[in-house]
């Protein structure tokens, strides 16, 4: 019984999160914004939680479920790389290490500065 009602609550909360996503997408389309609809939906949900318009318990189970399986939801998009496999030959191959170097520059610099700023504050 408990398991059943738990599942029911999670499904209801997932529907609510889908709703926020759809509203976000509509806003993005309506105003032709550059920001993705999912990020707009996230901001909207955050505002609703902050202003207590929506109690935390109404999304906690659904959100935890989605975040626990976040990597799964990326897979169908990342598999799209298969359409561009011919891109990875010759000189273009160099772009892979260049992406990594550029990404490491960001990680090291922001990680180090962020850590230093926090430590200095304390």
């Amino acid at each position: 019984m408990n398991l059943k009602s738990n599942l029911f609550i999670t499904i209801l909360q997932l529907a609510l999160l889908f709703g926020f996503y759809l509203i976000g997408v509509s806003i993005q389309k309506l105003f032709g914004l550059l920001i993705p609809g999912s990020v707009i939906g996230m901001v909207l949900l955050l505002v609703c939680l902050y202003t207590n318009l929506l109690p935390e318990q109404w999304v906690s189970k659904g959100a935890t479920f989605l975040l626990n399986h976040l990597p799964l939801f990326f897979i169908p998009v990342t598999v799209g790389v298969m359409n561009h496999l011919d891109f990875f030959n010759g000189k273009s191959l160099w772009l892979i290490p260049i992406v990594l170097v550029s990404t490491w520059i960001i990680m090291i610099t922001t990680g180090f500065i962020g850590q230093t700023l926090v430590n200095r504050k304390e």
Partner: protein
Amino acid sequence: MFLLQAMFWLIFTIAIYFIFTLLYRLLPYPFLIPILTCTVLLVILLTSFDVSYDTYFSGGKVIDAFLGPAIVALAYPLYKQRKLLNKYKNELLSTVLLSSMLGILSGYWLTLLFGFGEVIQFSFVPKNVTTPVAMEVSRMIGGEPALAVIFVMIAGIGGAVTGPWILKLFKITNFLGVGIALGGASHAIGTAKALEYGQEEAAVSSIGMSLCALCVSVLAPILINWL
């Protein structure tokens, strides 16, 4: 037949995700993250059996439909950590700005240095932000969205795989340093990795990724025009 194939790839993707997640729990090496192992296995299988991406995606889209709501769900850890984020808002905003500038400028100059043409260069610039934003930004500044997606994936998966080593090597252990490094450099895939570190890291990472997306969409056209 088509529907059956779509169903098969849908179930197969979920099944290998759970198998590789289990494997990753037993052997937590960064290069065994499920998003990488599952993608590689699927690309190998699909290409060797001559299955098109469209056929795969007719099943995969069911999983893809959860991606948007999952990004929305990131508001929950942000809300849970609101006191912490509020306390460190200046540190967050300054590192977000730094992260966006570094991504754009290093991307621009590195591709220039290696003599890649403008189309590749402008597709390369927004690689450290989330896919939909990167696609739009690349289109705006004169790049090719399909190429931008490839670079976004390399930055995401590459960052999530190598991130733990890089962070250890440079002794970055603090929640804000780890969170901003992963979210700012490797967007949502980095944020999925940050969830493994903890709730505080994940909150910093998701706010970092969202603000960097905003920041890059504003800064990239301005900086590129100015360079």
